[in-house]
């Protein structure tokens, strides 16, 4: 039932956006619609010799052909616009062909405010691959199989309102719930501490008013420093599991977040600070082992150019569990115990060569408390303005109890080639 409501609201939002888009397309013709897209092939090859359970794509966790068409237009007065990006995907691993609406939205624009309705990607915060106040849906499968950066985020079906009363920007997002695309056993070898044999089902939040996701952001400049404040009434986007006598229910617990960020120049580089409080409203006392405890999250980052065409970025990130004693008391046997403070450092190094036609990118998550790691090196060559190819790897390691270490049977080398037009 909830699923049906969710679907119908989403369909309505998409239809509304589409009709806006179509309605405006004739007006937009005055300005012209710009078309573009690409064809892409992407393959990830598992590097570990592991005994995969049946039903898990073992040798190649990802292998697909993808074509994207995008269209954008604006009317001649510039007060209405639309954009759409559609992917046709032939997934060889799952033997599936699908049409995905990555984005489809219409805009109304005035001097002091804008409104955007439809499926849209929203990115907030100042972290590099670390998200605190950005609770919008993400695609972990795309990340862990080395898809290009743009596939890290999923579009939200949302109404986004912006107002610009100087000197601040206000942003309000009202969205239907969309879960993260989390790794499943179709492509990944994952430990399963849940009892086998019980039927499993998933409950998603619907789109009734009290289940909508509402997020707000206020941002402004103080000289050349940028400050932002955030608040979200949302849900966890990765499922929690509740085991009953008769079944296992995956669900998305309610979550409220509030936080702030700050970024500006320090020395010869850029300093970024972000903090947030995760209020796990369905487990305020921290005693429900199936739901994440409330947390403080924070990060500090610094990036600096080292020499021509080379940049180094470092981040320190922490998650402080609020009710740690309650968590430990209620943790079921057989589950690995988390630390009260989970600490992660990241390193990013980028170097361009040959007039930026060659890009070497190295990113590493280093679990300081969990003693695990996730390293992502990549090398991209642009043959021309239209054609590039990239080879890279997703390398997981360290203790298996860690978030990254638990993925270590899934290390892979990937190859992507894209022709854009």
């Amino acid at each position, binding site marked *: 039932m909830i699923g049906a409501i969710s679907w119908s609201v989403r369909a309505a939002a998409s239809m509304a956006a589409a009709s806006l888009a179509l309605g405006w397309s004739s007006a937009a013709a005055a300005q012209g619609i710009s078309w*573009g897209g690409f064809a892409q092939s992407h393959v990830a090859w598992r590097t570990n010799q592991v005994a995969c359970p049946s039903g898990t794509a073992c040798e190649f966790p990802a292998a697909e052909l993808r074509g994207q068409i995008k269209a954008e237009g604006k009317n001649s007065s510039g007060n209405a616009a639309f954009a759409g990006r559609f992917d046709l995907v032939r997934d060889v691993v799952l033997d599936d062909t699908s049409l995905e609406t990555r984005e489809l939205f219409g805009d109304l624009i005035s001097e002091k405010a804008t409104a955007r309705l439809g499926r849209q990607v929203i990115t907030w915060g100042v972290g590099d691959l670390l998200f605190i106040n950005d609770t919008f849906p993400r695609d972990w499968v795309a990340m862990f199989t080395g898809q290009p950066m743009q596939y890290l*985020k999923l579009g939200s079906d949302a109404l986004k309102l912006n107002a610009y009363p100087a000197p601040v920007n206000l942003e309000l997002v009202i969205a239907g719930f969309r879960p993260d695309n989390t790794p499943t056993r179709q492509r990944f070898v994952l430990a399963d501490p849940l009892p086998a044999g019980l039927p499993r089902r998933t409950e998603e939040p619907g789109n009734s008013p009290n289940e909508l996701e509402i997020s707000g952001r206020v941002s402004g400049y103080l000289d050349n420093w940028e400050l932002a404040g955030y608040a979200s009434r949302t849900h966890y986007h990765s499922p929690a599991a509740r085991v009953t006598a008769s079944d296992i229910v995956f669900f998305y617990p309610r979550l409220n977040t509030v936080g702030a960020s700050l970024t*500006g120049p320090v020395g010869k580089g850029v300093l970024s600070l972000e903090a947030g409080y995760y209020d796990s409203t369905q487990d305020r006392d921290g005693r429900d082992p199936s739901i994440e405890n409330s947390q403080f999250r924070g990060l500090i980052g610094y990036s600096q*150019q080292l020499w021509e065409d080379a940049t180094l970025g470092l981040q320190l990130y922490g998650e402080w569990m609020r009710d740690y004693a309650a968590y430990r008391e209620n943790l079921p046997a057989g589950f690995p115990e988390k630390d009260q403070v989970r600490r992660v450092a990241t390193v990013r190094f980028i170097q361009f060569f040959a*007039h930026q036609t060659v890009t070497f990118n190295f990113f590493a998550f280093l679990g300081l408390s969990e003693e695990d790691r996730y390293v992502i090196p990549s090398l991209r060559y642009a043959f*021309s303005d239209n054609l590039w190819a990239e080879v890279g790897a997703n390398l997981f390691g360290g203790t298996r109890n860690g978030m990254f270490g638990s993925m270590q049977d899934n290390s892979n080398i990937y190859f992507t080639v894209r022709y854009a037009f």
Partner: protein
Amino acid sequence: MKLLWRIALLIFVAAAVVPALARAADPSGDEIVKRSLETFYYAGNDMRAKVRMKLINPQGKVRERDMTMLRINLGKSGDQRYYIYFHNPADVRGTSFLVWKYPAREDDRWIFVPTLRLVKRIAADDKRSSFVGSDFTYEDVSGRDLEDEVHVLVRKEDVGGRPTYVVESRPKSAADYSRRLSWIDSERWLPLKEEYLDARNEPFRTFTADKVEQAGKYWTVTARSMKNLQSGHRTEVVYQEVGYDVGLKQDIFTERYLRDAPSQWVR
């Protein structure tokens, strides 16, 4: 006899003083470069141009970047703001850059990545880095500081029928060049040619103004190229639809318009 001595002395003094007076009429190297920087990078209160960049490798293979460039000057401080929107190539369409430029300290730079709707502040302390893979540096695009170099007028010379001052500039702190020669139009104050020389006194990088036109009140280099003589790579840039004092507002140079290009100006 005394008279003869006096005449001889007079002639001698005149011979010494007259050319000195004539030289004194020429501005100093600093003055020439200052005026040139003002003309080349600060013309008008604001500027809008469509910029087409061709990156040509030694094999003749061409990559192209089409941009809209907006600039505003903030009063007399020398602070400027730049907004650059990429129309092409297809894979970066919609990417935009925002630069807050200060004469005496590091610039602030932001990039907008359209596929992720992500605004990111970028660390930028090296003005000598390549601008989007071209032979032009950030400094070449948005201007350099007068005080970074010591400037000396070395001679006057015609370039392509235009009178120029030839100025030698030496960087005060270590740089990728040991000196730079500039041929600066002595009437229009635009650089018509520049040569960067390495430690062995060999030119390794040359700038040429290929076309100079008047846009409104201001003389503008509408076609320019930068050649790397060592690698054989070169970049040709054409400025089209150049307009000065078009009425840009300061709020265009903020995050809002980085995310949503101002359609009045970016077409």
